[in-house]
């Protein structure tokens, strides 16, 4: 298997990372060498194995329905790159 430039570009779109030709070629090279090493897993038969998503052998704890976090707009907005007291501001979204 080999990851081509088209795939790299598709993945970079999904990941919202811009890549130019040169970067795409380097990424393709790196990813191919990494996946060559990952392909080793194909040697294992895992048909009847349950996938493990978490090693924590317990279930979700539930919290009570209480409002605890309030009135922290200043804290929330403080770090945002474009200043506005009330909102986060982003470049125009084109539908």
């Amino acid at each position, binding site marked *: 298997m080999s990851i081509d430039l088209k795939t790299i570009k598709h993945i970079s779109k999904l990941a919202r990372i811009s890549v130019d030709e040169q970067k795409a070629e380097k990424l393709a090279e790196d990813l191919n060498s990494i996946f060559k090493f990952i392909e080793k897993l194909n040697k294992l038969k895992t048909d009847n194995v349950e996938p493990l998503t978490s090693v924590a052998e317990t279930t*979700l704890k539930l919290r009570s329905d209480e409002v605890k*976090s*309030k009135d922290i707009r200043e804290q929330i907005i403080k770090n945002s790159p474009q200043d506005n007291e*009330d909102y986060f501001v982003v470049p125009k979204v084109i539908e």
Partner: protein
Amino acid sequence: MSKNKSEYLINRKDNQYEVVIGLEVHAQVTSESKLFSTSATKFGAEPNTQVSLVDAAFPGMLPVINEFCVKQAIKTGIGLNAKINNRSVFDRKNYFYADLPQGYQISQFKDPIVGEGKVILDMPEGQKEVGIERLHLEQDAGKSIHDLDPQNTFVDLNRSGVALMEIVSKPDLRSPDEVSVYIKKLRSIMRYLGTCDGNMQEGSLRADVNVSVRTKGSKEFGTRCEIKNVNSIKFMQMAIEYEANRQVDLIEEGKSIDQETRLFDTKKNETRSMRSKEDAHDYRYFPDPDLLPLEVSDEFINKLKNDIPELPDDKKKRFIDEFKLSAYEATILVSDIDTAKYFEEVVAKMGKNRDMKLAVNWITGELFAVLNNKNLEISQSPVSAKNLAILVNLIKNGTISGKIAKTVFELMLDGDKDPQKIVEEKGLKQQSDPKAIEALIDKIINDNREKAIEYKQGKEKLFGFFVGQAMKVSGGKANPQLINEILKKKLQ
């Protein structure tokens, strides 16, 4: 184009098409705090004032699930006669958008909390069952505001992280009217349960509508299009009609239908393709490693089952059996929980010697008319159930006539006055003393001797004249039944 309630057929030269509709309803869970954070969920707050560090996806912030939201989802599942899953899993749905701070939505993909169920619709042609595919819990997104600034989009995260139930129906709906009845029924069930307030103006209830068409009688489904995020029943119906006709036109022209996501433009009344979503969404769902599987025991579920109130279908049945209402009357009275509550309170306050028919007529007649006029919900009714019950009883026991009751009702509207007091204060009590009425009638006959003779000679029409006179003289208070009886006797 032929049209009846349960069927929506589109006729073209040689073909007749039916429309197949499935809905993904997004219902906001009624709760104080959000699904995975402790910020408030109130509607209409100042922008970004109900946003926690978790909602805004600050580094290192983690989701912790709200037990109440889990219970609300399970209760709704019970209300939909659905299977509650003991184990469900939260997945991440990955995509980038300005109002999605985490870069993913926490949802349930493979293992939802609620499985298959069903909802019964009361259609004029009879009952219809609509299958529920699943119900799952997920986070709502924030809001992007595009019209505050020419160059920028503003983002308000107040809604970000609020719990939603996505209720997915099977493709069992066949007409815009059925969709309307289905949404109203879902809304009704959730309002009975207190799990969603169903307020469509505030966006508490919205739907993605899946529409396809096929020639009538065909068993195969056509290619479907999904109309995203429609927030009123009227728009859903308009969108379906437009979309179904568009698809039929394509088929008739020999063109194929693309499976795609579309948007309903409420101004132009048309659906159009959402171009920005075209780069084939790949949501890369995977189990959220910040959360463990959600497990609920049978005991937990059973406890909730015991808390389930009487739901519309059962209530309707009881109203018919116990109160001898017609199916039509019962349907109207149970359709909204507040109406049902009001009615039941009236019934309770009327006591033993109650006139159910009269009560129903007053609620669905006079009261509904007033509410409609004043644009009020029944919960805001200017006349309390208690006072309406007193009024109905006053009619029933002959204290006032139905006609006088209307006058009394008008007076009750101002400050929910006690009708008993109004009757007393205004002296509106019905004249039911036979001696007094006899005296009154004697006087009328005396004053109209010629007419009395004419009547006795056979001009029976004049009976009405005498009744009218009696009512007039008594100021409308004389008991009409007594007037009738005594008049008949005197004019013999």
